């Protein structure tokens, strides 16, 4: 990393409490370089999903600051931020809200105000990037769960974001879909922040991992080191599958 360009993501002492008073984040500071792939690990309720929504300004910190590609995340720059940060939600049915897959993928680019020709090109590009070329006219309910997940990702990729944020990318995928989807993610050039419970998936895709618990960062380092630290995993209710052997790459 050259350090000349601003970091992809910079969180400084971010606190967040929900309107009901629940403190989801209590002072998170994080620095992610452009092109890095970072897994965010932690037990349920640790604040992982809240963190995701901070990255594109859906939620704003009650204290502290978030910036993306050198731009402060806030009401003023929402358009710029959402162009740069694509969030893939956990349930693809939440993301595929248009009657056809192609219309869904065109939704983001249309909001960016692109021309019809450019939108079309983006749709085709995004479809082939996730291996769904030719399936644009389908309705989401005619897709398998794995295909829906890919389509939802394409709907974000069509905005050509610099940063991709994924919430539980492998949840509910069968082994084959999980493997295929991992392959697609591994082939992307974007900076990736991936919230997951699936430790082998984190190891496969992300070189760096951050452990969050109780709204704070508990550990940050190379994924292989973190997954190799049995004490750390146990302390934060993280578990590798029985018999999983770490291969260092």
């Amino acid at each position, binding site marked *: 990393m050259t350090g000349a360009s601003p970091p992809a993501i910079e969180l400084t002492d971010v606190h967040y409490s929900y309107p009901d008073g629940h403190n989801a984040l209590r002072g998170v500071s994080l620095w992610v370089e452009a092109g890095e792939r970072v897994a965010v690990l932690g037990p349920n309720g640790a604040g992982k999903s809240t963190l995701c929504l901070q990255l594109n300004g859906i939620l704003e910190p009650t204290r502290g600051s978030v910036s993306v590609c050198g731009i402060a995340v806030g009401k003023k720059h929402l358009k710029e931020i*959402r*162009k740069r940060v694509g969030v893939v939600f956990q349930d693809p*049915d*939440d993301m595929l809200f248009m*009657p056809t897959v192609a219309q869904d993928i065109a*939704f983001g680019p249309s*909001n*960016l105000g692109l021309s019809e020709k450019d939108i079309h090109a983006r749709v085709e590009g995004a479809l082939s990037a996730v291996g769904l070329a030719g399936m644009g006219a389908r309705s*989401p309910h005619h897709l398998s769960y794995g295909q829906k997940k890919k389509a939802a990702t394409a*709907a974000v990729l069509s905005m050509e974001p610099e940063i991709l944020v994924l919430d539980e990318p492998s949840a509910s995928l069968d082994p084959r879909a999980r493997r295929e989807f991992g392959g697609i993610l591994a082939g992307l050039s974007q900076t990736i922040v991936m919230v997951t419970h699936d430790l082998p998936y984190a190891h496969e895709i992300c070189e760096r991992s951050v452990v969050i618990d109780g709204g704070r960062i508990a550990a940050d380092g190379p994924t292989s080191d973190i997954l190799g630290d049995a004490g750390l995993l146990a302390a934060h209710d993280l578990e590798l599958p029985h018999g999983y052997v770490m291969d260092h790459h």
Partner: protein
Amino acid sequence: MGSGHHGGGVEAVAAGDSPMHRLDPRAKIVGLIGLVIVAVSLPPGAWTAFASILAILVGLVIIARLRPPYVLRRMTIEIPFLIAAAMLPFTVEDGLALGAAVGLKVTIGVLAMVILSSTTPFPRLLRGFELLKAPRLITVIVAFMWRYLHVLGEEVSRMKRAREARGYSANWLWQATSTGPLIATLFIRSLERGERVYLAMASRGYEGSMPTMAAERMAIRTRDLAFLSTFAIALASIRILLP
């Protein structure tokens, strides 16, 4: 009342191919709704006109290559009204003519909409309405509704199965209260999903105005104009000449 709304296989049939399927949805919407309006406006006794309109619809069924068992199955929805119409001869003066006219109008209305929905996939139908300048807010709400109908429909089936797996069977009205929590769960899930969908939309730059659903370009072609003008001439002559 009572029957579910999912006519089996509509979507598969609508995704098929025929000259009727290939027409622009706008031509089909205008033509078939126009036909229903003409039929509804006919007085009892205009039997030649009714017969001509039915003949047009049967012709469209053949051109669309829709299979009779499928069409008949989808038309069963009109049975209660045919029964009501069949009782008219016994209850009012000139009831026979009246009953026949009502039965024919109901049949024409149902058959026309069965043809429309069986030759046009829903997204194209919606796009057609949009291009016909239907209020945007309505088409957008319809689009969301149609999309999530499938998701919620699956949730209902899952909940029903879970209920039956635990030995649920009800025959009497006072047992109906157990349906309440099921529908309540459905309501809560629907609103929560609505909130998540909104977040997902906002994440992709949504600021309150929906882009048009222009993923697919549509153009009125010669065949659409030919269809519409033939339809208009036929309907006008039926309405003017035959009653």
